[in-house]
């Protein structure tokens, strides 16, 4: 026979079991992070790798307990790498409750959404938007990459070092916020070093663009080299078109083109192209090596620069969220500016008071279908 107390204890135990089942279904509410990226089209490789890097970082952060005990939930939206697409993606993600944003891989896609998100006091950290158009603004835009005119300057220095004195220039008119700044940096440094540039040719990055006609125009300029501030598809197509003429004209490419697609689209014709880019996946940092290993294991290929910057951008945002006094745009912005240095897998990231960074670019050359760092 049960006593009064024992019966109550058994009833209590039963209730506890039911309560435990009920509580088991209560998980902490995740923080929604908006991730607008260009995921489709001929230039999608940068966005796809960037997304993969961001996802990898978020998975690691969640595996180690999330931010303030809550997991991160990425909401990914294709921004089509266009200004209008970027704005639409930012609006859609805001509507889905994004607390902050990590994304926009091209300056074009960020050009409208930076103003939109800043007006709503929402932080956007871009892994690879490098246009100096957005420098020196006290807004809610932060970036992990250095200014893109430095890419042009690095390529100009290499061109001069190789003895080139005249240069034709090609730029992508869709992403002009990016490509024209590379062109400006190149022109300024190249001409300062005694070189001469021809008026730039605009290309629209579409598959129907007549690259053969462009090649003819360039060959008529009889220049020593060609700077192509455009995507991997643009540069490889130009390379294919020039190769078809049997002319041998050295090509210089900006970071945008430093993706495996350059070799896929260009085949053997892209050998010898020199590119300026950040994100050296073969750097010596042990944390970088671990990231590369994990990336290979997870996605079955080498990470490109956008994956590295995406990974760093996500980690910077998580750190700022953890340190923010208030979990809103102003709070996260203040936390980003309060810290002088954020640790990155390619070296420290130092934001100035406008959320810009000065990070180095390296020079790579395509040799036998591989990017080889030369400086």
């Amino acid at each position, binding site marked *: 026979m049960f006593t009064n107390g024992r019966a109550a204890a058994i009833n209590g135990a039963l209730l506890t079991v039911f309560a435990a089942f009920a509580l088991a279904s209560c998980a902490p509410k995740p923080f929604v992070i908006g991730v607008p990226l260009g995921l*489709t089209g001929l230039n999608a*490789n940068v966005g796809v790798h960037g997304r993969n890097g961001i996802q990898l970082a978020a998975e690691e952060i969640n595996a180690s307990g999330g931010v303030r005990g809550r997991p991160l939930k990425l909401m990914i939206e294709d921004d089509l790498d266009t200004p209008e697409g970027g704005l639409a993606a930012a609006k859609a993600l805001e509507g889905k409750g994004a607390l902050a944003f990590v994304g926009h891989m091209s300056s074009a896609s960020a050009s409208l959404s930076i103003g939109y998100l800043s007006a709503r006091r929402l932080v956007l950290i871009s892994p690879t938007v490098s246009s100096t158009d957005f420098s020196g603004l006290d807004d809610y835009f932060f970036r992990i990459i250095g200014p893109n005119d430095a890419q042009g300057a690095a390529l100009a220095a290499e061109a001069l070092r190789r003895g080139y004195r005249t240069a034709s220039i090609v730029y992508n008119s869709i992403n002009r916020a990016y490509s024209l700044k590379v062109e400006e940096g190149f022109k300024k440094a190249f001409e300062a070093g005694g070189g001469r540039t021809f008026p730039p040719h605009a290309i629209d990055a579409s598959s129907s663009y007549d690259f053969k006609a462009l090649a003819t125009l360039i060959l008529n300029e009889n220049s020593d080299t060609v700077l192509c501030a455009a995507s991997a*598809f643009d540069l490889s197509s130009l390379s294919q078109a020039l190769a078809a003429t049997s002319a041998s004209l050295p090509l210089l490419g900006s970071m945008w083109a430093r993706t495996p697609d350059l070799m*896929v689209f260009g*085949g053997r014709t892209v050998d010898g192209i020199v590119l300026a880019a950040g994100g050296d996946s073969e750097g010596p940092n042990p944390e970088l090596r671990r990231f590369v290993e994990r990336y290979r294991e*997870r996605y079955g290929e080498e990470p490109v620069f956008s994956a590295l910057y995406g990974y760093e951008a996500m980690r910077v945002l998580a750190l700022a969220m953890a340190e923010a006094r208030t979990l809103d745009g102003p709070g996260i912005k203040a936390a980003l500016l309060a810290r002088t240095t954020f640790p990155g897998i390619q070296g420290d990231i130092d934001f100035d008071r406008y959320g810009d960074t000065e990070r180095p670019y390296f020079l790579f050359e395509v040799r036998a279908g591989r990017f080889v760092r030369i400086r």
Partner: protein
Amino acid sequence: MSGYVKGRPRRAERSSLLNIFIANLLLAATVPTFVVAGTVGFSLYRYLQREIHASSHSLNEAVAMETRRFLNGAESHIAAYSDLLDSELSLTDAGRLIDITREAHPEITRVLVLDPEARLLLTSPAEPGSIGRDFSGLDLALGDKAQGEVAYTRAYLSPFDGTVTVYIGCRGDSNRSVLIELNLESLSLFLLPLRIGQKDRIGIIDEAGRFIAHTSPDYVREQRYETILGPFTADSSARSIELEGMLASVMAIPGTSWRVAYYRDATEVRGVIASLLNIAGLISLVCLIIAVTIGLSIRRSISRVIAHYISDVQAVAEGFYEKEISSPFEEFIPLSQSIGVMGTAVAEREGRLRGALGEREQLLREIHHRVKNNLQIIISLLNLEVSRLPEDADTASFSASIDRIHAMGLIHQILYSQGSLDAVDIGDYSARLISYMSGAYGRPGVRIEQELESIRASLDRALSFGLILNELVTNAFKYGAAERTDAIIRICLRAEGPDVILRVDDDGPGFSEELNPGLTDSLGMTLVRSLADQLSGGVAWESGGAQAGVRATLRFPLEERGI
């Protein structure tokens, strides 16, 4: 060790018979229900889980076979195209024939013919601007393949339109290669009708985990990777996992390095399990509610009977010994019989005690009567003694003694003439004593005002009180009223809390400043002080001087104070 326990004493633990009964009833009703429901639910869950995995496996098998059929179509075409190129037909004529057959097959977006250096010779449909394009960047290792054997590339963006595609390649006799750009959108559309449920998803994944085809084509367009099943390994040709609300299972597609992944909405799949578990839970809940309702009903009915029973027992305890205690419960019959027997015994014993008590009271009353008579005899003797004294002899002390004895006798008279023997109403007693003393000392013109409350006091206290009252009233008559014809004597008796207050006022000349009644050694005053001490009380005198009268106040506790 000391038996002392500090703090509040602990209440003895008692159990409620009803609560024990109800608790056990609830346990008896709910525990088996929960155990049975839990066991059945768990068994069903395991059974259905196995069934679900088995059905997912079957679905995967079917989808893999269908996908293989889709690819077989493309592979058979590439073989045919290769034969065309190896024939005597010119490249242009072969291209026209390829155009005709390709248009009928939506799974083929484009057909490319490459020279041994991987440069584009021909496309179907025609892409004149691309002729000569270098395709050596594709990882199509046809050199390792036998002639006529097909090879698949990983997913690429097509340089012609930017869509995600996979190339199937085949090398012919002339070392020219034929490549087919697979229309992955059509492969995705092909998967769509293979779904069982509307929420189910099917994906084809390459060896890197990237989606080649998906029932939601955005998965392919955005080059998404499989995230639920995790990285694939060589031995992960068939595995199942449940995560993020999806039941996913994967199976290799023969002849490729691709895998088909079938995702089923876990909520939908488990709908049957959930409804069964819900029914089991509902049954448990209903059983619990019924048990609680029955328990409360039983508790109420038992409570009513027990309350009635307790009321009967209380009546017996209060003296209704003849009351019959009945209960509808068999278990209570022996208890009822015992209480009945006990009541009878108590009634008999009480009758005997009452008889003895009556006899004792009668005896006491007789004693009081005799004491009163004896005191009366003493008074008569004293009066006789006084009458024999010479006329000029001082008889005041005799008179005082007679008064005191009378005061005592009056107590005994009241006691034997009233019902109870343990206490005297000193208000009534005071009235009688004052009446007697008015007769003895009163004169016309002396008015007595009395205000007396009915207060019951024990015999001992009443005796002391009576003697003090006698002294104070005597003094008032003798000294306050004196020879005057307009004197007023006020006597007030009242209870004040636990104390009794007796106040005797006169409007006489008062006492002189030299006289302190509290210290004077006259017999009367000494007696008053001594008796007041016995009563644990005190007497106070007040006099306002000449013609202001005297107020004597006696205050004593009604109950004798303990030591």
